[in-house]
């Protein structure tokens, strides 16, 4: 059984997902990619990850719905970091109200993301 910490990455930008997957795998994490919210929920339910990275705007099920599902239905208290584009400040506030732990505004630095992931997983 793998001892690597699992991270579910929900992001509809496939290039960004790939870039972050490479970067986080280099740091020793196991990355599970979901291209939409629906797939993200499936992966979370099947793999019980240690952390979730989620974009707010995604097809089918939004990042907000993913957070709500994790916190209210699955009752999981794992750290959640959300990504948001400029002009989505209200969405970010909603994400925090639903139980997100941190957020990063796009465009963001992958190196900064790694620091935040490490910090949240060290607790």
């Amino acid at each position: 059984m793998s001892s690597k910490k699992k991270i579910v990455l929900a992001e509809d930008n496939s290039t960004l997902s790939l870039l972050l997957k490479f970067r986080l795998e280099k740091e020793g994490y196991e990355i599970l990619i979901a291209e939409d919210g629906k797939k993200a929920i499936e992966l979370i339910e099947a793999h019980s990850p240690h952390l979730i990275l989620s974009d707010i705007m995604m097809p089918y099920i939004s990042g907000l719905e993913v957070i709500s599902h994790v916190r209210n239905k699955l009752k999981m208290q794992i750290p959640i970091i959300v990504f948001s584009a400029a002009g989505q400040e209200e969405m970010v506030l909603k994400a925090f109200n639903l139980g997100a732990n941190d957020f990063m505004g796009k465009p963001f630095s992958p190196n900064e993301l790694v620091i935040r992931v490490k910090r949240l997983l060290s607790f």
Partner: protein
Amino acid sequence: MIDLQYYTEYFWELPILIKVVWLISGVLFVVILALIAYLKFLRSHLRENEKTLKKYQKEYEENLINYLYAGDNENEISEAQRVLINKMKICVADKFKRKILISVMSKLINDISGEMAHSIQKFYFETGLVNYALYKLKGRKWDVIASGIKELTQFEVKEAHNEIIKYVKHPNLEVRNEAQLYLVSLFQFKGLVFLDKLKTSLSEWAQIQLLEILQKFDNQEIPNIRPWLQSKNNSVVQFSLKLVKIYNQFDVRDILLELLSHENKEIRVDTIQVLNYFQDTECKHFLKTKFNTSSEEEQIEFFRLLEITADTDDEVFILENVAHTNFKIKLAALKILKAINLEIFNEVKLETTDLQVVEIVKFIEAN
């Protein structure tokens, strides 16, 4: 055989109108069959195209990511990166592949910042993609030029400045917008220099886009707005008024007072709004003297200003307008009166025969 002959004879014996209907039906049937065949071909062709697109997209995504992680600390471009650049240089010669690569790079550069964003820009130059975008600027179609400028903005090609500044006066609105966005996105406030000689109108949407870009920058040292406030181009004046308000440029107050007499009504209204924002009291005397000749919009804006700045000196003027025909002005006048002199307000309340005033007073007292 007999059947066919029978039907042929039967057909020829039919009235002419029925014959025509049959012939049209036959032709339509053939056309529909041909169309179905064409649609089937088109669908399979599009699916094939989509498959190819996805294949290249995946390949280019991987190549780009490999390039981004192949850097070393010793060289600006590592050996491994050079190999990938050379490989992609061949691909970009093909228009279809170039388009896919650009879309992959655009997707990424919009979402990431820092060193990796710089690496993508370097990749854009090294693969020669920049030359194709520059070539687009020489295109005949406006959409090609606009997309070229947009691409150069996205990949922050400052070197194209001299080429792009020419398009600020382009007859096509989209091209002009893209050129203006390029200048402001890459040169920040200095990019606003195009306002000096702008003769075409700056649309409201373009103004919003420019302001949004300007607010992203850390450097908020804004240039001299005065010449733009005195521009002959009304849209430039309106845009400058927005800058005055957002960046608190109260030192241009003297020009703002001059703009209260501008020939354009919208500018006069916008100016009162800006003065209201600064809670300026010195403009009140001038606005009072020209109140009766002002437009209703200006009068309403002036009363909004008075709601914040009015004092006992304004009492007479306010009283004169308690019976104004405009409801908003009437409401504002009574509100102000209550705030600055409750005694007079109560007198008006008792003496008025105007039913609307009675209702407004009730509303003000209840809130």
